[in-house]
């Protein structure tokens, strides 16, 4: 009897509490994301702290698995049932696709108040805007076109720095191979093959060609001799990787460079996190250099898209969240944890490592030269079905003895098929 009374009393108290908290229009935001491990989880936790310190109520909806595939499935069903989360980790043209469905909220008043147009690079603004309105906010800039090299192994063949052109790259790799060193550490997964491919496109064709071929999908560019030369170079790189590369995860390839089993890896700057976590010092224990290109810079920007929500508390929460994400404080803490660089100007890089500083300097140079381009392999440049069609051809070519001519004709065909 006594027990029952207690339960009843607790129940009443709880419901009173619940009513009380609903009565206040506290800013509330539900955040759907798949940053659930390691540095990424810490990075999200820093946003949560920031948000709560500003009086918001954070509703965490992490959906792990399948590099976001699982989260996207959840998102689809949530939007279809009319109950979208306030902010969703979403990137690249996927933002435009959701905006076309009319699912995204307009952030222009926050953008105007915070002056986003002046601090966010133009190419990134294009990704965050739909028909001129801000619908998403960037959290970081990862650079894709990096070479991570082991200086000790390079010294063995008399090299002191990473190659500056693809010819130098091949010459160096041949020397390494002759010396019995695996020149390139690579993981044979489609997205990794595509990562190497796009850096070669950028290097051999230049930024203008990259834009035409992999962003505008211009048929002449796809069908050109330059593209054939790109596939020739891919075939060469295939000869520089060890026999066991298929299926290997990228971080295992990074470990090969770290442990002196291979000389170089072409990978985005999330690889840096592996080196730093192992206590390695940039410039001394490992070299970070851009892959050969003329002022090119391939960016991979994570972002949160803001979905239409109803209710004052939710709208307020969404605006507060957007403001905080682009804010200098969050951009610094988040990117220190994630290994990327801030997606806005005006954040001091004093606490960042040398590779991050180089990334920032190259970003500014590339922007001035027109070489600041979205990554195709990481879903920044094209919609999923189009980039998927390219990746299929690239990985089929890399993992077989397909000729460059055939690869080019298949590329053109695959794009045509995917377009309609």
């Amino acid at each position, binding site marked *: 009897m006594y027990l029952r009374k207690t339960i009843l009393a607790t129940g009443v108290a709880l419901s009173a509490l619940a009513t009380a908290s609903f009565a206040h229009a506290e800013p509330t935001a539900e955040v759907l994301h798949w940053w659930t491990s390691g540095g990424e989880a810490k990075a999200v936790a820093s946003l949560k702290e920031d948000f709560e310190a500003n009086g918001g109520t954070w509703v965490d909806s992490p959906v792990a698995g*399948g590099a976001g*595939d699982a989260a996207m499935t959840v998102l*689809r069903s949530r939007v*279809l049932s009319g109950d979208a989360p306030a902010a969703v980790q979403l990137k690249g043209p996927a933002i435009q696709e*959701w905006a076309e469905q009319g699912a995204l909220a307009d952030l222009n008043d926050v953008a105007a108040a915070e002056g986003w147009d002046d601090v966010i690079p133009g190419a990134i603004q294009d990704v965050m805007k739909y028909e001129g309105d801000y619908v998403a906010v960037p959290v970081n800039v990862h650079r894709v076109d990096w070479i991570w090299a082991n200086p000790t192994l390079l010294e063995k063949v008399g090299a002191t720095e990473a190659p500056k052109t693809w010819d130098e790259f091949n010459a160096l790799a041949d020397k390494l191979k002759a010396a019995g060193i695996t020149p390139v550490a690579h993981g044979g997964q489609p997205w990794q093959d595509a990562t190497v491919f796009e850096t070669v496109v950028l290097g051999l064709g230049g930024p203008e060609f990259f834009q035409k071929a992999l962003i505008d999908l211009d048929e002449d560019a796809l069908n050109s001799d330059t593209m054939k030369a790109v596939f020739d170079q891919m075939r060469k790189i295939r000869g520089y990787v060890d026999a*066991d590369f*298929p*299926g290997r995860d990228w971080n295992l390839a990074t470990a090969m460079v770290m442990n002196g089993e291979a000389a170089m890896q072409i990978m985005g700057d999330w690889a840096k996190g592996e080196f730093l976590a192992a206590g390695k010092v940039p410039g001394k224990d490992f070299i970070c250099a851009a892959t050969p290109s003329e002022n090119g810079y391939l960016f991979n920007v994570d972002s949160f898209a803001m979905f239409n929500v109803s209710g004052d508390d939710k709208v307020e929460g969404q605006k507060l969240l957007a403001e905080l994400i682009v804010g200098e404080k969050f951009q610094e803490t988040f990117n220190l944890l994630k290994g990327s660089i801030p997606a806005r100007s005006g954040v001091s890089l004093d606490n960042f490592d040398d590779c991050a500083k180089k990334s920032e300097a190259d970003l500014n140079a590339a922007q001035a030269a027109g070489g600041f381009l979205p990554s195709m392999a990481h879903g920044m440049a094209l919609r999923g*079905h189009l980039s998927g069609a390219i990746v299929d051809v690239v990985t089929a070519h890399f993992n077989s003895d397909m000729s460059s001519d055939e690869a080019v004709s298949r590329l053109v065909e695959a794009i045509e098929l995917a377009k309609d």
Partner: protein
Amino acid sequence: MGASQSTESNLTAGIQRHLSKIVVAPSFAASLFFVYGFILWTGYMAFSKSRMLPVWDWAGLRQYERLWQMERWHVAIENLLIFGGLFIVTCLVIGCLLAVLLDQRIRAEGALRTIFLYPMALSFIVTGTVWKWLLNPGLGLESMMHDLGWTSFEFDWLVNSDMAIYTVVIAAVWQASGFVMAMFLAALRGVDQDIIRAAYMDGASLPRIYFGIIIPSIRPVFLSAIVVLAHLAVKSFDLVIALTGGGPGYSSDLPATFMYTMAFQRNQLGVGAASAMMMLATVMAIIVPYLYSELRGGKKNG
């Protein structure tokens, strides 16, 4: 008083009479909705223009046309034929052989039977991961042979685009042949011993008895085993994901992994649904004749 008692007993009797139907009803309703309902839904999606979100706009056969124009789908279908054919035949041969050998009233039969059957208790993910390590040239069998001094030994199927699908066959056969063995063993034990003894009396040799009498008499088990194995082959997904990840490239893609890629990674719900319907058609092509023959056979016997 008496009247109310009789109504009560009527009610109880009624409940008892319909008890089986009442118990089955919820699961019947659930499977009607979640299985057949969603089959219909997927069937419609395959005729729609759906990309990222399901839409109802009619696209006719366009998604099927696109599906059959995709190089990757052809690879997946070809792999299914190789994988399905080899998997079913090898499992039947090995399973049947093991069952016959175990049937010789040998010692420790129970222990051996358990050993052969245990792989079936593992999930395909575990099987795939273990075989990935075993078959990795730099880690497993090949490197072990090299360490033992046999340096010319080469077994690189896992990393060879042309051979990767065969590693999936190896792992799947390892897992499923014990189960087939158990099916056959049960059937062998059910064969009438008098016939066998009579054959002995007539001086028939042991192989002759097996091929002439026992195996023909357990023919229905072959059919059941083929149906079970065939649907395992068509729906194979986790084994490929764990073992090869569909690679190298997409050379070991199967229809199920293709469907997942299109529907959940590439925003191609329409093409994904079309490929799912093709898979359904394949399974139906196997199951429907089987069910038909079973049901017809049942009537004839009854």
